[in-house]
């Protein structure tokens, strides 16, 4: 058959020569993405076997082609996927050939995969590479992010690790995983992000609200978790990472398998299993702190020349023990715990996880697609569904009762449509709309009053961003509008409703009176406008300066609005307020950078002024049958956060590098002229790294991590009566723990097992000297020391 075609072609051409074969075909080969011409592209005419290359200006010329003949031309370029085009000659013919130069990898299917580069030009941003992520494979997302300057964490024990960006956390930090805004009940301080770190290819952190395409309420910042990119080629490859740790006597195993085809089709599967028993402080076992995590991620898609579609599903499933000794019955128990140097409960090591514990399941199903249009840009669409199930088990009076105390199901549907203008590579224009519908269902079978009420929420957002590069200058700006509507059905205790004066203010909200409780139907509507503007200037190849301003607004979260009782896991009464208005942040960030191999640094100061900042703090105590409980009330105030992040890297010699980081945040309640509670203390990390590429890519580092004592804190101590002492005792919940210094080591080596497989071995020791310390931002600090020495061994196999 093929012979027949060739024969015909020759016959055809033979005829053509006899006719008129004096015409030429000329044109340019152009990158579809940025309109740049492509030099050294190879063009071959299949009929006749003529091969030529484009010149330095991307121009090509074929001569002596025949009138009326259709030629098949194969076009290829080193960094592009080859393509075939057909051209029919009609006189001297011109034809421009577009190639997808930029798209070397399939990660592009993710709408946001390239977004940080575009949208955060003047915003202060830090990121983690795959290597940084894998070093923390057995840890959590928060542990990995902790390495970045300006990012710390708010912990509950060592498994619930919430990222804090320049002093702000929870609802003020937006988490984007693979283009999807994570909806995982992020409001709670003991709710860690429901993300498997091992599914990430890279993680970027935008410090502040400049990432407008992700949301207008990121007062603290945005964390963007990007998936691994999949190259377009016929390949099957995989990677397995096994980590064993001494502290917790467990480890993790994570495997990724990817199959891709030249046609653009691909599929990948990733699974993670983590299992830990009780972790240990230097002097004792932290009883009931084990964890058991199981995660799965599947992607399948196609990435063609100018369009792509991807479907994906991820499951995150985690069971986490909460330190047994941190469960206290009353303020008196808390006082007893604080006055004791060791936890009140220390048992033998076990892998069993008992209450108090959390069981979390987060599922995301997603479909996205994009289409590129020549000369215009890229249109992307995404639909995703997220279901978050959160079970919290407390110690019940009846130990036979195995029901959770909190049983929440949060279901979220989102649809986004984004447009990227890409025709001119000195301009970035992005615009998009997002719609979201969310339902929270707290299961009443717990037999315990709902902490978070039933609610339906509808969000709508629209944004536009633009950036322009003019020689050394970069200018950018953006604006976003968000609409939020919350329709809640909340049971209030009648006594609380009246004590708050809601019976006078909001009598119309009451739907039904159950005597001691009232069913109410509060509805809230918020209209928020956010904006960002920035400028960057490159002095020369070495120095650059950026300035960014971001305005953001955040609607109060359900916990801030609706809390009205005992929060068992915190052993305090927490009171929200439905009269709260949105909080507004005005943040200015500056970054001065030097980029040279011998010495590079970034100094990034910021000032964040937040009006109607919502915070929670102790306001007194309340008498109950269980004794006195501290009362923590949310309130709104004006706040000011000032700080600076410094990153500094010296390359001393070919093999030795010294890196230094410093983060400072100072938070002030400007209304009351008092420091803000729970601000990260000043901390500095210094690392010396020795690398020798020639000897199995040897890399060894020693790291010193020094965390200062937080000297600025509000005095929130209170007194309670202790029966056994027969007197009032001061409960010191505000004094921060002392400064501490930890030394960490890590060494790694690569080996080629075969020509297709490599093996990487890494040995790490954290807290080398087994130092006892407590961390101000760990809620467990009232009850126990932080983790002792941890030796981990990691094996990574690529195949």
């Amino acid at each position, binding site marked *: 058959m093929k012979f027949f075609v060739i024969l015909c072609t020759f016959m055809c051409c033979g005829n053509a020569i006899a006719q008129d074969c004096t015409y030429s075909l000329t044109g340019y080969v152009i990158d579809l993405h940025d309109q740049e011409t492509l030099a050294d592209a190879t063009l071959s005419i299949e009929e006749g076997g003529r091969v030529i290359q484009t010149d330095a200006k991307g121009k090509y010329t074929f001569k002596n082609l025949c009138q009326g003949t259709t030629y098949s031309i194969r076009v290829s370029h080193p960094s592009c996927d080859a393509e075939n085009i057909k051209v029919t000659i009609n006189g001297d013919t011109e034809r421009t050939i577009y190639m997808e130069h930029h798209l070397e990898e399939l990660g592009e299917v993710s709408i946001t995969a390239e977004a940080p580069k575009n949208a955060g030009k003047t915003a202060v941003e830090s990121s983690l590479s795959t290597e940084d992520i894998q070093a923390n494979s057995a840890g959590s997302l928060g542990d990995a992010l902790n390495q970045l300057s300006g990012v710390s964490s708010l912990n509950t024990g060592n498994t619930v690790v919430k990222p804090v960006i320049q002093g702000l956390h929870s609802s003020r930090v937006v988490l984007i995983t693979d283009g999807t805004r994570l909806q995982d009940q992020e409001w709670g301080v003991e709710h860690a992000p429901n993300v498997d770190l091992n599914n990430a290819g890279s993680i970027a952190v935008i410090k502040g609200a400049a990432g407008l395409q992700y949301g207008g309420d990121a007062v603290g910042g945005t964390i963007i978790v990007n998936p691994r990119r999949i190259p377009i080629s016929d390949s099957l490859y995989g990677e397995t990472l096994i980590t064993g740790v001494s502290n917790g006597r467990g480890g993790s195993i994570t495997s990724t398998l990817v199959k891709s085809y030249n046609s653009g089709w691909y599929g990948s599967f990733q699974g993670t299993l983590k299992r830990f028993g009780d972790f240990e402080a230097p002097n004792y076992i932290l009883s009931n702190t084990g964890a058991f995590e199981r995660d799965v991620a599947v992607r399948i898609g196609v990435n063609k020349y100018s369009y792509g579609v991807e479907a994906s599903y991820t499951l995150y499933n985690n069971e986490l023990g909460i330190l047994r000794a941190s469960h206290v019955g009353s303020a008196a128990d808390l006082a007893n715990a604080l006055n004791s140097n060791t936890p009140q409960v220390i048992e033998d090591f076990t892998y069993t996880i008992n209450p108090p514990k959390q069981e979390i399941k987060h599922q995301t199903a997603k479909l996205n697609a994009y289409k590129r249009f020549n000369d215009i840009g890229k249109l992307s669409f995404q639909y995703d569904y997220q279901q978050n199930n959160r079970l919290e088990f407390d110690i019940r009076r009846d130990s036979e009762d195995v029901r959770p105390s909190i049983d929440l199901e949060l279901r979220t549907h989102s649809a986004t449509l984004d447009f990227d203008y890409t025709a001119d590579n000195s301009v970035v224009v992005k615009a998009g709309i997002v719609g979201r519908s969310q*339902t929270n269902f707290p299961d009443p079978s717990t037999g315990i009053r709902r902490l978070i009420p039933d609610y339906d929420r509808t969000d709508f957002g629209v944004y536009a961003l633009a950036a322009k590069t003019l020689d050394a200058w970069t200018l950018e700006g953006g604006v976003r509008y968000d609409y939020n509507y919350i329709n809640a059905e909340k049971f209030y205790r009648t006594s609380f409703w009246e004590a708050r004066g809601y019976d006078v203010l909001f009598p119309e909200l009451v739907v039904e009176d159950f005597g001691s409780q009232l069913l109410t139907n509060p509805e809230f509507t918020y209209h928020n406008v956010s904006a960002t503007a920035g400028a960057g200037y490159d002095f020369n190849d070495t120095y650059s300066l950026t300035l960014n301003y971001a305005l953001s607004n955040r609607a109060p979260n359900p916990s801030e609005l609706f809390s009205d009782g005992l929060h068992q896991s915190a052993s305090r009464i927490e009171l929200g307020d439905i009269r709260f208005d949105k909080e507004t942040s005005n943040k200015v960030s500056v970054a001065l950078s030097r980029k040279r191999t011998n010495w590079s640094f970034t100094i990034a100061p910021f000032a964040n002024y937040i009006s109607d900042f919502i915070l929670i703090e102790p306001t007194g105590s309340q008498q109950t049958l269980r004794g006195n409980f501290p009362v923590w009330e949310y309130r709104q105030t004006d706040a000011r956060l000032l700080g600076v992040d410094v990153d500094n890297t010296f390359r001393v010699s070919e093999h030795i590098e010294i890196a230094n980081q410093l983060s400072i945040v100072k938070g002030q309640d400007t209304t009351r002229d008092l420091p803000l509670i729970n601000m990260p203390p000043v901390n500095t990390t210094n690392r010396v790294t020795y690398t020798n590429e020639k000897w199995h890519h040897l890399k060894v580092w020693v790291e010193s991590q020094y965390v200062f004592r937080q000297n600025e804190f509000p005095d929130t101590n209170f007194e309670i009566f202790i029966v056994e002492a027969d007197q009032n005792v001061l409960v010191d919940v505000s004094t921060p723990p002392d400064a501490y210094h930890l030394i960490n080591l890590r060494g790694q080596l690569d080996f080629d097992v075969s020509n297709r497989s490599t093996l990487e071995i890494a040995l790490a020791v954290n807290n080398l000297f087994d130092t006892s310390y407590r961390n101000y931002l760990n809620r467990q600090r009232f009850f126990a020391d932080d983790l002792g020495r941890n030796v981990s061994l990691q094996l990574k196999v690529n195949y």
Partner: protein
Amino acid sequence: MKTINTYIIALITGMIAISCSSDDDNTPQVINEDEVITTVRIQLANSIGLTTTLESVDADGDGPNPPVFSITGEPIIENTEYVGSVTFFNETVTPAENVTLEVIEESNEHQVFFTPASGLNVTTAYGNFDDNGNPLGTAFTLTTGEVSGGNFTVTLRHEPTKPNTGLADAGGDTDVEVTFGISVVIQ
């Protein structure tokens, strides 16, 4: 392009349909807390049949209203032995749940402590014990001394260390802690 548009429209429509359909949920049902203790009742009776009842009721549980204390019956008299009982109720449910039964059933995991303030001339002794022979305390005896007055605290601890020498080394979680100001009067 056309197919993509159609696709997008179909998905948006689908999403709206799904989000609208979630609105037909029923009204949430009221939860009457079954973990709460709203009432602690201490009944004292002496050999000649004089009885005294100390009661603390916190009808709204963890709500803002404080517990209401009451002492009813005859005054507590000097140099007398009383047989006492402690009962716990959850009155947010109807009928009221007698939580004492659960405490007795899980006697190994509970203990009631009696703490008279130093100025109050009374002593207590445990009247019932758990399966291991350690004190439980839902039954007790109270012996008065000379005329005096002061605080008398009753504490219920969940999962205390047993045996123990008192509240100070008992640990566990406090389920109940009520303090009555009482007087021992002349006979």
